[in-house]
């Protein structure tokens, strides 16, 4: 592995940063200076024990010298490079750069990350200004009231042609419209205040609900207590759920999770999880429960319970028939987009084409640092069947890091969203990637 060969480069960089001589470091860890020299030039492997000793001598955590610590940094630097017309001839030397100049690499990666965050805010603001129904509604109310006041005032100004009854009526209309105008102005100011607040980054009610659940590690203990729960009390007064729409959404999800908890009681579910492993099909069969309820349940386990820890931390994403993501629990390494749809290749979307058919797909995230995940997808009707409305459908996808397999299936290359996916020649691509645009 190329990156692991760079441990020596990192040791050298860290030693130089501390102003320590090679001979001094060698002595303090009990090896000869010539051997340390070979290590620093990546010509000898370093044992875990020696790595620990070197890290201690340099007063840094051992993982700062390993590829694990560097991978995120390297990705950050790569993302920064890809955004600009960087000299591609040097792209292959990013690991070397990160290893030799970890401080500068950190600055670059953090700057890149900040640029991305700011871009998101700009994107969100722009999206709000053009499509935000709240803003449109507020402006519409104000313009309607102004139109009415202006037109009515002009009529009254020419009072000769207006008899007394009509004059009274138009005065009443103006009074009414001026009240609406005041209300509209207040709504607009509140809107702009909210847009300027620090909470801008978490605009949508859905995001507030997700943040609220994330605070609880996606486990709502009250629902698993086995006693009746007052969902209203759980939701009211929560700092994270600032908007009434957020509370309403949270109520809906709580009702759903409560129904899941009733169908799949936590204690036997955790026992079954240990016995069956993270296999939603077997769990669904064992409890005679809907597949999507099992997927949701697997994503809402008590994090401290050792039985829950037999399974890696999962991600969960739910979409409606339009493909809009209506619920997201992120998982490290498998990014979920905040805006717009996800990768059309996800089994989440494939499930919509095959309702009630459970799907299991091994995925590999695009890019050189690609990681393998297993996605379990399932789509089912939402609510009860009606003659007067088309059936609403929701798809659910549970994402787990893929366990090593003796004969791994060829993974499906996927991304988070087209915008940040470097996968070339993807038939499902709907927009160019910012990563590819730089190449």
């Amino acid at each position, binding site marked *: 592995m190329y990156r692991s060969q760079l441990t020596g480069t990192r040791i050298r960089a860290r030693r130089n940063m501390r102003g320590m001589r090679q001979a001094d470091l060698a002595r303090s860890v009990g090896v000869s200076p010539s051997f340390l020299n070979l290590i620093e030039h990546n010509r000898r492997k370093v044992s875990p024990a020696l790595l620990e000793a070197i890290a201690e001598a340099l007063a840094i955590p051992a993982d700062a010298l390993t590829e694990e610590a560097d991978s995120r940094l390297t990705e950050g630097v790569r993302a920064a490079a890809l955004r600009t017309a960087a000299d591609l001839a040097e792209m292959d030397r990013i690991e070397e750069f990160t290893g030799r100049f970890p401080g500068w690499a950190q600055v670059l990666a953090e700057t890149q990350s900040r640029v991305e965050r700011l871009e998101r805010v700009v994107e969100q603001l722009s999206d709000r200004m053009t499509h935000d129904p709240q803003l449109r509604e507020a402006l*519409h109310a104000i313009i*309607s009231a102004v*139109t009415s006041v202006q*037109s009515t005032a002009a*009529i009254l100004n020419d009072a000769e042609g207006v008899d007394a009854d*009509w004059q009274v009526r*138009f005065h009443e*209309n103006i009074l009414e419209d001026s009240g609406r105008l005041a209300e509209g102005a207040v709504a607009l100011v509140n809107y702009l205040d909210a847009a300027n607040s620090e909470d801008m980054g978490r605009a949508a009610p859905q995001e507030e609900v997700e943040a609220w659940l994330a605070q609880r590690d996606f486990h709502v203990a009250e629902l698993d207590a086995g006693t009746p729960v007052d969902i209203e009390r759980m939701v009211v007064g929560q700092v994270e759920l600032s908007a009434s729409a957020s509370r309403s959404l949270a109520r809906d999800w709580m009702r759903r999770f409560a129904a899941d908890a009733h169908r799949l009681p936590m204690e036997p579910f955790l026992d079954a999880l240990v016995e069956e492993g993270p296999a939603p099909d077997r769990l669904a069969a064992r409890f005679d429960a809907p597949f999507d309820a099992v997927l949701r349940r697997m994503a809402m386990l008590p994090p401290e319970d050792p039985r829950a820890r037999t399974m890696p931390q999962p991600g969960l994403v739910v979409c409606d028939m339009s493909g809009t993501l209506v619920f997201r629990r992120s998982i490290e390494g498998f990014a979920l987009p905040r805006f717009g749809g996800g990768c059309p290749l996800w089994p989440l979307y494939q499930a919509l084409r095959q309702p009630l058919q459970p799907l299991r797909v091994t995925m590999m995230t695009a890019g050189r640092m690609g990681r393998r995940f297993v996605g379990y997808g399932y789509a089912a009707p939402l609510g009860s069947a009606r003659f007067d409305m088309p059936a609403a459908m929701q798809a659910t996808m549970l994402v787990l890091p893929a366990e090593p397999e003796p004969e791994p299936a060829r993974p499906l290359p996927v991304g988070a969203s087209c915008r940040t996916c470097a996968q070339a020649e993807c038939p499902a691509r709907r927009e160019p990637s910012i990563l590819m645009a730089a190449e």
Partner: protein
Amino acid sequence: MEKRVLVIEDEPNISEALRFILTRNGWAVDVSADGLGALARLRADPPDLLILDLMLPDVSGFDILKALRAEDQTRALPVLMLTAKGQMADRAEAERLGATRFMTKPFANSEVVEAVRELAGSSGAP
């Protein structure tokens, strides 16, 4: 015979002002706040001019315009569309769908009277 104008506008005070202005100038004015209901009425008995608000609660003014332009008896009906100022995209869409004239809110009463006179012809009233 009086020329007839139908106003589809969900803001009652705006439609009342429009009704007053146009009636005073001799047109016979009908008002509807319900887009879908008005569409049925338009098909059955087309007026001489339609004043159509874009943002209606039950259906978009664009949908009404599109439906009108798809049918023989209303294909040539003059339509004056009203919408909020600054919505350039709306204006382009209205033109694409066949609006005869586009007017932004807030409007001057004299502008409306002038536009109606041009599109529907003089009121026909003595």
